């Protein structure tokens, strides 16, 4: 019996044949109350106002309107930053995804038997995951200077955090039978891991890596904003100078690239599973 049932005791219902059933009190009223209160608080703090939206909502489309028609001639200058963004994301994803492997292994209860060690490793992964990517990128620009190296680092850290959790969950749900069988015929732990666990985890590992890469391309476009190189850099510049047709061109090229990458990656992921 949970605490909730103690505060709000279950209702007794009597059937026609004399049997009784306890009906636990519904949690819905409490949940609804919390949601309503929090919404009210949020509306007050953020100044949410539908009237403003109704009156000035059309202003949202002003900049969007100014982007059309896009400045087609500008496209020649977009290629290099666009490729920089792609390179940053690709390299960052690979570095992050590879370096996380030993950490994820150490955070899996079925590989490491020491609960304290697993707990510390998981806390570490959690904390890395809470670091906002933007902060990582800013710090990286201070350490590595402005440019793509900073962006690559930020993406690698983000990938590390994202893949870490997924990977250790994947390793933990792997079937340990094959691992034990390998150990039973005299293989070392590492070798048993390579032959028995990796084949089970690999398809979803690559699939998640590809998924992460898709997201990273979008993220990389933001990172340039803080000076970490790539598309965000020129996007920031053109927005600052209010050259909206050029901004439109950048966004269109980013869209086509993301569309292309997602299509290829979805095809690969479907083949993997």
């Amino acid at each position, binding site marked *: 019996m949970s605490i909730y049932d103690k505060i709000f005791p279950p209702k007794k*219902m009597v*059937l*026609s*044949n004399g*049997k009784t*059933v*306890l*009906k*636990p009190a519904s949690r819905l009223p409490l949940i609804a109350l919390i949601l309503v209160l929090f919404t009210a608080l949020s509306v007050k703090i953020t100044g949410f106002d539908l009237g403003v939206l109704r009156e000035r909502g059309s202003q949202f489309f002003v900049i969007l309107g100014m982007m059309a028609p896009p400045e087609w001639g500008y496209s020649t200058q977009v290629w290099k930053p666009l490729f920089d963004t792609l390179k940053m994301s690709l390299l960052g994803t690979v570095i992050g995804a590879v370096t996380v492997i030993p950490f994820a292994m150490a955070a899996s209860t079925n590989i490491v038997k020491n609960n304290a060690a697993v707990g510390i490793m998981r806390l570490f992964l959690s904390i890395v995951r809470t670091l906002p990517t933007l902060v990582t990128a800013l710090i990286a620009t201070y350490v590595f200077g402005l440019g793509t190296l900073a962006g690559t680092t930020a993406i690698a850290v983000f990938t590390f955090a994202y893949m870490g959790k997924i990977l250790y969950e994947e390793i933990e749900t792997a079937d340990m039978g094959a691992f034990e069988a390998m150990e039973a015929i005299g293989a070392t732990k590492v070798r048993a891991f390579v032959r028995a666990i990796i084949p089970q985890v690999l398809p979803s590992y690559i699939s998640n890596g590809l998924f992460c890469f898709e997201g990273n391309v979008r993220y990389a476009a933001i990172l340039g904003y803080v000076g970490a190189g790539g598309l965000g850099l020129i996007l920031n510049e053109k927005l600052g100078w209010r050259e909206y047709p050029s901004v439109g061109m950048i966004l269109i090229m980013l869209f086509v690239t993301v569309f292309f990458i997602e299509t290829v990656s979805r095809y690969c992921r479907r083949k993997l599973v």
Partner: protein
Amino acid sequence: MIEFNQVGKTYSNGFQALKDVNLKIEQGEFVAIIGLSGAGKSTLLRTINRMHDITEGTLTVDGVNVMDLRGKALRRFRRRIGMIFQSFNLVTRTRVINNVLMSKVPDLPFFQALFGIFPKKDKLEALEALDKVGILDKAFVRADQLSGGQQQRVALARTLAQNPQIILADEPVASLDPVTAKQVMGDFLRINKEMNITILLNIHHVDLALQYAGRVVGIRAGRIVYDGPATEVTQDILDEIYEGKTEEEAVG
């Protein structure tokens, strides 16, 4: 009373599922329909509450011509006929009691149905239905935490809460293990005897059919090839129904 008169059913793709079916089932009978997969058992069952339309002949239930029913009248007619499926068809993510209460939904006024407010009478009836199939203690558990046999009992309770005169069961035990299958068949028999509800069920397990049902209807390629008491079914008759394939079928 359910009465088939020269009933035929041709699907839109030209497949003839039922041919010249004549059948009369009195209130309170327990009828098992046996036959190969694809012989038309399921179609036969589903014409009774008009989940499928018939294309020839007439089908009456308590004097009502089923093919004359439309919209609201059809829905009211279906209230009197319960239906059980092989795959239980429960909303597994809500509590058992909510699944049983679903059968009360068509009688609720719009706003009560919208917010899911059921009168106390309905709730008690739902609980009593659960009691009848012996899983009263699971009433407030989420349906996905029950075993297959328990889930089929929830489906049975849902149908009972509807106070039906007829229960149609489409392969009710096909996805259950042998022991649970017997328990569920026992539930059907008890309901049939105690509440005088007509029960029609499709079944692959010939031995269960012969053991529990009072009457057996054998179907082959859309035609009724046997109709008589379960006690009089012989190996020759089974051979006739299953075209000599009884062995594999009975085991399966």
